[in-house]
């Protein structure tokens, strides 16, 4: 996924990661990789929140 990936896709991916972890059918290494991927997506989502500066331009 990239920074341009829609927010909903990132959220869906994180929810999929959570479901995979909760199913418990993953190794420690896989769990760590999934957790890191989820953290990266969460950081990207936080970055997504800061869209602009909130300015109002009259044209």
């Amino acid at each position, binding site marked *: 996924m990239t920074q341009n990936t*829609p*927010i*909903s896709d990132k*959220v869906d991916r*994180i*929810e999929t*990661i*959570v479901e995979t*972890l*909760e199913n*418990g059918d*993953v*190794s*420690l290494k896989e*769990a*760590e990789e*999934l*957790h890191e991927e*989820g*953290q990266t997506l*969460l950081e990207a*989502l*936080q970055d*997504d*929140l*800061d*869209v*602009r*500066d*909130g*300015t*109002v*331009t*009259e*044209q």
Partner: protein
Amino acid sequence: MGESDYSQIYAENKQLLAEDGLLADERKQSLPELPGTIGLVTSADSDARVDMVTALHSRYPDVDIKVQHASVQGPDALQELMSGVATLDEDATVDVIIVTRGGGADKTLRVFNETPICRVIANTDTPTAVGIGHEDDRTLADEVADHRFMTPTHAGEIVPERAALEREFEQLSTTLNTAYQTTVVNQLTAYGTSLHTAYKSTITVRLQELGASLDHAAERHIEAELLSLESRLKTAYQTLRQEKEHEEELEETVEEVRDEAETEAQARIEATQWRYRLVIVGLVLLVLILAALYLI
């Protein structure tokens, strides 16, 4: 123009737009989940503009808003609205275009039923949202836009609530961390159990091997010890037997020596007795001789 006459024009315009497929739902674009910049086409000094900006920034303060001023009624309205929409559509930073105005008399809203402005709105590359008048007001511009909202105040729905998104992301983070920690704990517990079981199994097998080796070594040691004892016993027996034989030989030798000594002593005694007897006989003979001589 009377209301009935305008209804006819409205229907004809709608028919034209429909024939061109501009009312079809499949043409409609999805609005961006989180637009960074919103282009707003409305009257600059209208309450609608104030309500729009307030509604948008109350939900998402960070979003940029570019206001493209346009008359929303009167002779210049159609051209300015079309120009405003086109200008914002050419602006690559604009993620969604909103066309709006507040409520008013039905006649003042008729510009939004004109096919030119409807075609411009329908043909933009940028997603569009239109909200004209009050909740009961419907225009063809509403119909061709990708999204319709009831009033300028409702335009805030174009953007998500930032606070709600932050809460959702925070909840996601908590859920993710909990799921990860639970997975790790469960995995480590399972590994610990497996390790303990494997350790016990290994120790059991190893102890059994050591026990068998110990038993085997003990048996060999006992066998060797018994062999050694047997050998020592045989040796001791033989030594004892030899010593016994030697002792018997010595006893025999002593007996023989004793016999020989006794015989020899006896012989010496007898010899001595003989010598004494001879001396006595000699002495007797001498006495006899001397007595005879004396008598003679």
